[in-house]
């Protein structure tokens, strides 16, 4: 039997050996109990490190990171505008400076980014699936501090996949995900809005490939995003709106 190398032993732990080498290592280990014990410990570390850090994958991605792909110069320009605005405002409202306020992303943009992150996700598209819809809605309602409703869109061909909690500039955000029979996904993004309650008309925004219809209703902003045509999306947005405002 040819000698087993230290590298082979690690590859054995990491499942990186060919079948034949693996058999050789196993045969060798049969007569080397100390090394067997050592490799078992190594394997345990792998598993434990994964248990420690895999949960990070399911955390909501902070909005700041999603905005990091906005070229720096654009953020500087935006910051400069806010800064100038702050100075201007400071002139009017003495002693107050708004220079350090973060640059807000528009509702449509936040929603489109969140859509782009989670809609292509194969294994973890949602945190809570549609099979537990009652729990999903109760949970998200509690976190947003309002009675939410997941609109039923099967009449227009979309079934609820589930939802997740995200973090937005104004605190928690709920995202509901829907899917049609071809796997096309839509997301409904619900976030609390800053300032006085107000109502707006439907607005449309094209964010790269993601189309977004959005509106503000009282204290909450709603945005429906999808990589489908404007007309098709409007049809669904209309159903969503009617169900939320019976």
């Amino acid at each position, binding site marked *: 039997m040819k000698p087993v190398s230290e590298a082979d032993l690690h590859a054995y732990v990491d499942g990186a050996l060919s079948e034949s080498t693996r058999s050789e290592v196993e045969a060798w280990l049969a007569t080397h109990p100390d090394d067997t014990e050592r490799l078992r410990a190594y394997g345990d570390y*792998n598993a434990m490190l994964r248990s*420690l850090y895999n949960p990070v994958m399911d*955390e909501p991605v902070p909005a700041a990171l999603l905005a990091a792909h906005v*070229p720096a110069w654009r953020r500087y320009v935006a910051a400069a505008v806010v800064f100038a605005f702050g100075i201007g405002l400071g002139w009017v409202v003495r002693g107050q400076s708004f220079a350090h306020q973060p640059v807000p992303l528009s509702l449509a943009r936040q929603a489109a980014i969140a859509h782009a992150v989670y809609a292509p996700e194969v294994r973890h598209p949602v945190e809570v699936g549609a099979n537990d819809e009652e729990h999903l809605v109760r949970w998200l309602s509690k976190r947003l501090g309002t009675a939410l409703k997941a609109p039923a869109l099967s009449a227009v061909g979309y079934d609820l996949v589930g939802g997740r909690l995200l973090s937005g500039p104004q605190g928690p955000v709920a995202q509901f995900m829907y899917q049609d029979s071809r796997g096309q996904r839509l997301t409904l993004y619900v976030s609390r809005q800053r300032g006085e309650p107000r109502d707006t008309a439907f607005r449309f925004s094209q964010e790269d490939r993601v189309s977004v219809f959005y509106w503000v209703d009282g204290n909450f902003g709603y945005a429906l995003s999808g990589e489908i045509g404007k007309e098709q999306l409007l049809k669904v947005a209309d159903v969503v709106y009617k169900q939320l405002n019976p």
Partner: protein
Amino acid sequence: MDKRLIIEHIPRLRRYARALVGDRYIADDLVQDTLERAWNKFYLWRPGSDLRAWLFTIMHNVFVNQARRRRYEIEQPVEEVPVVPVRATQTEQLELQDVDRALRSLPAEQREVILLVAVEQMSYDEASRALDIPIGTVMSRLSRARERMRQLLGGQTMVPLKAVK
């Protein structure tokens, strides 16, 4: 040019950064710096090549540069790691916390390798490309990382059964 290609990797980058530096906010800073750099240099990425490896290489470079400027506390003296009491059935009973503490006590270069292999589940070849080091170096760092963890976690000091009456 598709931004979403990068965005899809953010959860992975966050997981790795968190494991690498420990602190959540410092980790997200590292991710943010990585993303900005990736975005600015996206034209250098060859479509069709491994984007994950490319992003991890960028994160590695940002991490090393910032560590050099002492922005991240990357090394902890080994003495701070409490020795875990040795038990008859060694590793099964170790707490995750002890493993985490042992991980923190590794030199950064060893921590990177063990995390890419164990958590990111990269092949040795992928890890070697992500860190831009020869595969032999990957293996020796991995070996040293694991052995050091075992020492810290008490595996080395297995009480000989003979001593138990």
